[in-house]
């Protein structure tokens, strides 16, 4: 029981990540894949943020009453990763919009049948 209480955060992130991963590989709709991608990446951000948590810690901003701070480094790393995720999503959506213009569909099956 203590084991579960100590580590539930990791299991939540794994569950979320698998939802996103499944959507990314199994869905045929291009936009749904991107939604899956976002869930997938957000789960990893959640993992990083949960590394940084220290029990009893406050936000990592210097404050005279603080006894303990959270670990600031994962926040920094994940800020970078969030920006990367946003950029990837933007490029992906731009691509989808072009794909829709030239194929008339955003379903992978129909696009592939047009390519053959």
């Amino acid at each position, binding site marked *: 029981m203590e084991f579960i209480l100590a580590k539930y955060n990791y299991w939540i992130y794994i569950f979320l990540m698998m939802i996103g*991963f499944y959507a*990314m*590989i199994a869905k045929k709709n*291009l936009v749904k*894949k991107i939604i899956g*991608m976002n869930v*997938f*990446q957000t789960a*990893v951000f959640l*993992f*990083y943020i949960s*590394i940084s948590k220290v029990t009893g810690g406050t936000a990592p901003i210097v404050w005279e009453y603080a006894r303990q701070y959270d670990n600031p*480094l*994962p926040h920094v*790393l994940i800020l*970078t*990763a969030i920006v*990367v995720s946003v*950029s*990837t999503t933007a*490029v*992906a959506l731009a*691509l*989808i919009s*072009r*794909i829709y213009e*030239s*194929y008339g569909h955003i379903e992978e099956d129909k*696009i592939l049948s047009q*390519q053959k």
Partner: protein
Amino acid sequence: MAQHLPILPIILPLFAAVLIPLFGRIRVQYAWFFSVGATGFSFLCSSWLLSQVMTGRRVRYFLGNWEPPWGIEYVVDYLSGFVLVIISFMAFVVTVYSWKSVEKEIPKEKVGLFYAVFMLLVTGLLGIVITGDIFNLYVFLEISALSGYVLIAMGGKREALMASYNYLILGTIGATFILLGIGYLYMVTGSLNMADLATLLPPLYENKVVLTGFAFLVVGLCIKVALFPFHIWLPNAYTYAPSVVGTFMAATATKVSAYALVRIMFTVFSPGFDFKMVPVTEILFYLGMAAMLVGPVLAISQTDIRRMLAYSSVGQIGYIVLGISLGNQTGMVGGLVHLLNHALMKGGLFLVVGAIIYKTGITQISELKGMGKRMPLSMAAFTVSALSMIGVPLTVGFVSKWYLGVGALQAGKWIALPIILLSSLLTAVYFWRIIENVYFKGAQGQESGRQREEGPPGMVVPTLGVASLCLVFGVFAFIPVSIAELAAQMLLGKT
């Protein structure tokens, strides 16, 4: 200034990428000048760095002057110096070559931005090679990946968009796995610096978090390398990309990922971990051999030249991974030399194909009849590169295959030997189809086929340069081999 040398190869293309959108609107030719200048100086700086490293000292550079475990550092050792020179050289050659081809394939308003994104791709790839910080590697991996997606989508056909999208999905899965692996390593060590991780990790090798993190890093990088079961993004991407982009990415992108794989496996983790504690090298060994067979077999059945070359890349990546996975010095030298060789050979082949597309618009193998008379210089370069791919003695391809074969024997893995021979044979088969069409089948009833239609000098000179390097390094093989030997010694910890 010499102390700041390591930063220059990276920030020169970066500044070019930022300045091109500003000055490119005045005159679009500036974009090309800036790119050539940036990649040229980048190549010079890389060569200078390699020459410094060859005197026996590791060059380190602390960004922002924060000492390593806290800040980010750049490390140039034998391996990264070697790969840095390869990448910056190919970038320079392709940029010099690019002007006419880009002018034809990209809409005029977008040429400037195209060069800007191209420079970002170069920045990203060089940044991956030189960094000594594992998270910095991820950031630059994403810069190169993101610019790669867009450049592929710039190919005129609509299939290019779909190829780019598929690459984006797989590339993001790979990159996110890498990010997750980095997080796992950070979680149990508290460090992001590669050298620091290498000292902190050994007591933790039994730790399940480390094992999982390692697995995710390797799988993520294998997707980026396009190793056999993960290669599905590669053929379409290289086929439909603009020819300049196809050339550059075929010559460098997967090599850089292979370099990152070597870094993770042998610098962050130790050879003892890879070979004794986890079955990763065994798996890579068999996957590499599968790629060596699957790539050429699929290449034989293709009718489009670029698609054939792309499948051939799948096979060649197999050689590199095979060399890495053998675990002895000879095999590693073979793998690393093949990194250089494949960049030169595949670069040369794609450069010729780009010239053919520029001049005639031909993309099918069957249409190449009589090309030997129409474009004699380019086709000579093509033949040299193709012979080199097959592994004919006195070309670079022979050197690396020789080392790989000897390495496999030393490792006691006899099974690799017939596979290398068979793969070379299959390579010979698919190149023979082209050579036969080019030289031995005249274009029927086409008198116009007689006249010379060589590409512009800006395209022919770089092509011939790369092809002649295939011969030079084949004859004077000791130059790359000596560097690769030092790198292999460093990686396998025998110095």
